[in-house]
Structure formats: C-alpha cells, structure tokens
C-alpha cells in the first residue's frame, strides 16, 4: 500500500520495489557514456576547479615546508616529548588510514554482496582510499627520528648482517600498509581499464588517444576478456575484504600489543575496523554530496546512495559505541587498578574534554539522528554530519594515543602534551595534498565506472528466449 502512495508522491522511488531508485529513469548506454566521459573530455577547465586546486596546492606546499623544516631540525619541532612520545603523526596516520577503508569496503565487500547501488560511487571511493593511504603513509615515514634511515624497516641484505625485528607491530604495519596501498591501486586500475578504452575511443585529441590508449592496454571488449576480467575483479574483491579488515586490525595492534593501560585491549581490532568504516563513509559523503551537485550527477548518484551510506554509518557507529561501552565496563569489571585509573583519567583527567568530545561527535549526535530517513536523505544534514563524525574519529585516536600515554605506570613521569604550530601545519597540509590529488582525479579520470553502470541499465538485459532459441 505504502509503496503505491510513494509512487504518486515521490518520483525518486522505484514503483517496482518501493525502494528509492539507484538510477534515475531514462538513462541509455550513450547518455551514460556521454554524461560521465564528457566531464573529463571537455577541454575547458572550470574556474571553481582551478580555485580549489590552487587551495589544495597551497596546502600541499605548506606540508612541504613543514616536512622540510622537520628534516632540518628533527621531530623535536613537534609537541612529542616524555612521556608522550607519539602525537599528531600517529593520530593522523591512523585517522587517514581509517578513512581509506570505506573505499575498499564499498568496492570489495559490497561487490561480493552484489549491492548494485555501489557501482555509482565505488570509483571515487577507491580513489579516495588511495589518496588517503598516500596521506597516511607519509606519517610513519616522517615521524621517525632519523627518516633518512627509514628504509631499515624493510628486510634487505646489508653489510651489517642485521634485519628487521618481526615481533614489532610497527613492522607489521609496514607490510600491512604497503600491501594495502598496492592492492588498492591495482584494484582501482583494473576497474579503470575498460573505461580507459571508452575514453580512448571518445577523445578527439591525438594526445589523449595515445595516453588513454596505453592506459587501456588495448582493451576491446572481447566477451572472453570480460569473463576473465569479472573473475579477476571478484577475486580481488575477495582478497581486498580480508585485507581491509586486517589492515586496521594490525594498526590496532600498534596499541593492543603494547602493555600500556588504555592500549593493551583485546577489543581494539573490531572497533578499530568499525571506526575506520564509520569515518570512511563519512568522508565519502563529504566528497559525494558536493560532487553530485557540481557535476549534476543526481541521475547516477541518487538519494538512495546517500540513504544507504547513512545506514552503514548508523551500523558501524553502533559498533563503535559498543566498543566505548565495553572499555568502560571492562575498566570496572576487570577490577584492575590500572584500567580503572586509566578510564577515570580519560574522563576526568586534565584533558578529559577530548573524551567527551569524541563521545559527542561519534555517538551522541549521529546515533540519535541517523535513524530518521528524512534526515538521512537531507543533503545538508548529511554533509554536516559527515564532518562531525570525522572530527569525532580524529579525537578517538587523540584520546587513545595521548591520554593513555601522558599518565601511565609511574606517577613520577607523568607529563602533558601541547601541540605546536608544526603539528597543525603538517596535519592541515595533508588535506591540501589529498584535495589536489582528488581534483586531478576527477579532472582526468572518469569518476564513475561506465561499464558497471551500463550493466545496470534495463537495455543491458538479454531477453532470455534468445539464449534458449534454437535448442
């Protein structure tokens, strides 16, 4: 019944299912191709793009300055000290990596679950992943005291006959993150190959033809190729799924394996992963909502997507909330003074405000409002919400790293932590880097996978009798 009414009132709803439509009606192979490819192929670059890009560039430059100064002077220009020997660098690292997770999740896990609606957003979600990992990967490299020796973390034959120490979670990070970056890039590129083919065939410029031609590796849509291609994509998805889970698990080991109260927690892996997806989807929203508006993609990225992403955030946010809850519960239930004091200090210690900050941003605000579909499909609301959640997730890492460290076992060595301008500059700088990379992406690469959209069009269906015909 309800669906009937909806059809009358709401054009966005698919009368067949009563669900919001994944694609707006009236798309054809040609129109889809044109719509998506022409965003890239248009020779004229919009002023808005240029402005944004210069902002991004400025940010990236600031990052460069900050890092140069860092290399000249040493990590001492940051606020890190005794006992808080890790600070912004590690916080940002975990934060960015977390954001990356949504991309892989959308492109891999939702693919396995045959969630058709993912097709419209997985391309730029993956791009976001890669750029986020780039920003994240920067930090472990620059945060070490002697960055010019960072390559010692890799096992390679040397004249010292010494090797990395494989019991250290940091070393696990090296492998987890490098694998994650590689697989993400490969997955992304594989997805791009056929579309590069389309671009090759649509672009007028000789140069464009060469570049896209090479990138497409000579793709020509042979159905056998398509079959292998589909298998490979599925396999990659199947591999990326355990990978994405493992990456944040390993990162949570950086803390969970240590003996520090507040770090030494078995619940970290699951709630780190959930938190990662949480923040990741928030970031996808932050990007999708403006993109959709600017490039008039409402037809391809519909309210259905926004709505679903809202639901995912609701779910993951719930898991995160459960994680916080368990931490508090265990600090009481474990009857361990260390745990108890840690939790007390987290809540009411000198920088307890940061804990309440994260509770507000990650639980209080989102988990009370995201239940309502009306709000879930309200763009402005969702945009703001996505920002709030990412702030909250940053504070989660801040709380874990700093408030656990600054008051640990020996009261005599308690200290405090005050970020310096260099901390802020480096952090802000990575936004610039991320922004510029992302802008380059939407300018030169089709931001929505055309062949996957085409598959979803009604015209793509082969009338069944055709196959049986003649038997």
């Amino acid at each position, binding site marked *: 019944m309800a669906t009937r009414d909806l059809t009358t009132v709401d054009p966005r709803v698919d009368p067949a299912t009563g669900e919001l439509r994944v694609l707006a009606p009236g798309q054809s192979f040609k129109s889809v191709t044109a719509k998506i490819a022409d965003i890239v192929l248009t020779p004229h670059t919009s002023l808005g793009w240029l402005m944004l890009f210069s902002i991004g560039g400025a940010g990236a430059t600031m990052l460069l300055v900050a890092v140069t100064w860092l290399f000249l002077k040493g990590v001492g220009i940051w606020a890190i000290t005794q006992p808080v020997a890790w600070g912004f660098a590690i916080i940002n690292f975990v934060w960015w990596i977390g954001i990356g997770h949504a991309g892989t999740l959308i492109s891999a896990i939702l693919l396995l679950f045959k969630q058709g609606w993912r097709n419209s957003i997985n391309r730029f979600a993956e791009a976001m992943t890669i750029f986020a990992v780039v920003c994240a990967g920067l930090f472990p490299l620059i945060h070490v005291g002697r960055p010019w020796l960072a390559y010692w973390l890799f096992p390679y034959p*040397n004249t*010292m006959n010494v090797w990395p120490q494989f019991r250290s979670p940091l070393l696990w990070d090296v492998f987890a993150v490098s694998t994650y970056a590689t697989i993400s890039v490969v997955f992304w590129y594989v997805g791009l190959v056929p579309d590069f083919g389309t671009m090759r065939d649509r672009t007028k410029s000789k140069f464009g033809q060469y570049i896209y031609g090479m990138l497409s590796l000579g793709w020509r849509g042979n159905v056998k190729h398509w079959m292998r291609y589909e298998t490979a994509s599925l396999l990659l998805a199947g591999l990326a799924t355990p990978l994405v889970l493992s990456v944040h698990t390993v990162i949570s080991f950086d803390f969970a394996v240590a003996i520090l109260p507040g770090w030494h927690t078995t619940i970290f892996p699951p709630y780190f992963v959930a938190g990662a997806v949480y923040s990741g989807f928030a970031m996808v929203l932050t990007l999708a909502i403006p993109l959709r508006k600017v490039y008039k993609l409402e037809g391809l990225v519909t309210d259905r997507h926004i709505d679903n992403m809202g639901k995912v955030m609701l779910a993951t946010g719930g898991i995160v909330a459960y994680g916080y809850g368990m931490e508090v519960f265990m600090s009481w239930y474990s009857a361990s003074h260390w745990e108890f004091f840690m939790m007390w200090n987290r809540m009411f210690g000198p920088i307890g405000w940061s804990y309440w900050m994260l509770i507000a941003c990650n639980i209080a605000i989102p988990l009370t409002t995201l239940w309502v579909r009306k709000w879930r499909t309200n763009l402005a609301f969702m945009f703001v919400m996505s920002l709030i959640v990412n702030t909250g997730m940053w504070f989660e890492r801040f709380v874990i790293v700093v408030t656990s460290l600054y008051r640990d076992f020996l009261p005599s060595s308690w200290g405090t932590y005050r970020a310096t301008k260099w901390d802020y500059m480096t952090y802000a700088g990575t936004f610039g880097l991320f922004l510029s990379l992302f802008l380059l992406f939407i300018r030169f690469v089709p931001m929505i996978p055309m062949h996957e959209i085409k598959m979803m069009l009604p015209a793509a269906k082969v009338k069944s009798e055709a196959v049986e015909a003649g038997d």
Partner: protein
Amino acid sequence: MAQIFDRSSNALARMSLVLTGILVIALGVTLNELQRSPWVTRQGQRPDQPVPFSHRHHVQGLGLQCQYCHTSVEKSSYAGIPPTKTCMNCHAQIWTNADLLAPVRHSWATGESIPWIKVHDLPDYVYFNHSVHVNKGIGCASCHGRVDLMPLMYAQNTLQMEWCLNCHRNPGKNLRPTSEIYNMAWKAPSEEKPVWCSVTDAKTGVPTAQSVSCVTDDPTRNGATVASLEMPTAPGAGTGQAGMGEAGGGGMVMPASMMYTKFTSQKALGDFLIDQYHIRPPNQLSSCETCHR
C-alpha cells in the same frame, strides 16, 4: 578511424614490461654490490701518506717486530702509532738526508706531528679492542693481512660489520697460539705442517699465553717419547666460558713438558684453543654491546 598505434607497439609494450622488471632487479644487485665495493669500504686503497712508509721494507727486510712501533697493542684498545722519536731512533743515523724522510725530520725539528692518514678506519661508534684479540690468539695478519708484504699500507679487509661477525660467530677458524700472533707467515696446521701443543694446567689469574705452548716441529723427535695417542684429544672440560673456573686439561697427571697433542687441522686446533683460551661463545661475541656502547 584508424589505428592509434602501429603493429610494432604490441611487441614494444610487452618488451617494456619485461625491461622494467629487469631494471629493478639490476638496480638491486648494483646497490648490493656497491655497498661492499672498495669505493665505499676503501678496501685495498693506498692513501697518499706524508711519508711513503714501507712495512715490507721494515718488517720483512729489516725484521722489525710489530710492537717496536705499535707498542700498546697488547695492553690497550689502541695499538698505537709510533711517535716521530721512534723513526728518529734509526734515522738519526741512517738515511739522514733522504728527501723521503724530510717530513720526519721536519716534525722532529718543529715538534709538529706527522699527519698520517688512517688506513684502518672504523666508524666512531665501534669500540674495537686490540689487546683482547691479541691476547686471545688472533694474529695481526688475520685482520691486517700480510703487512710484511705491503710496500704501501692498505686495508686487506672491508672492516664491515658482516666481516667482523664472520669471525665472531666462529672464532675457531682464526685462532692461533699466542706465541704465533706476530708471525705474519703463520699457516693453519695441516697434515704436512702439523702443530703440537701442550698444556701446563691453566690456573685462573694467569695471562692466557702462559697456559698453552705450541711448537711447529715434532717435539717427540727431540727426546720426549710420549706417543700422542696417549693424549686425551683436545683436553677440554672447559666451559668455553671466560674465566668460569676450571680450565680444560685440568686433571692431567704427566709433567706438562711431555704432553703434546698433535693438530693437523685448523678445526681441531681452533676447538682446542677455544677451550684453553676460554673464548666466549658466539652468542656473547656477536652480542651488540661487545662493540657498540
């Protein structure tokens, strides 16, 4: 529309893929070689010294003892570079006008040091101690090579960590009787040139050398009638632990002078000396604090 790429491009594309692979590997191999190359290690290079001092001439030719110049090699971590005075001991009388020796005379006259260039130059964070090596049966030649054959001094070995570990992990293969430390021409024992060693039962507190005495010609020929088969092979209840009390070969009854064990391989001699000299086990010798502080 026509083709974008011509026929050859397929071949090219695949070739380039293969080439990239090869290049990466090649780069790795190069770097790996580079870090061990003389360009980095200075191995075998002869720097320009203020005086072209020839070890060959002084050691092989004139038969000077190593310690005559490197006085503190047995006592200190630092073997010692001879003061100008040491040179002048002789060169006040001979070659008094040789142009080659002008820097020496200048130094002697003005009291300014002769600025030699370090040939065996360890990184500053490596704490090497000559005295313990010399006292524990590592000969000069083992590290410095046949100095007596070097007209101009150069580093025989890389002196890189891997090279040090090579011996610290298996000291036996370079050990020799302390009496042979300064013998440049010392060769590991073999069937043709065996070595006979005897043990005066080593009591703790006496310097290493005194507990073992070795000879290179058969002691049984000159009088000592004891057959070496009566010998306990490689006497050694020794814990191999420096100074952990009872030394190998303790419970022997016969007078020391008569009890010679014959060694025909470096392996056997090495094991024997490891016991006698209480060489620390590899895990201790290759432990970081041994060289880095």
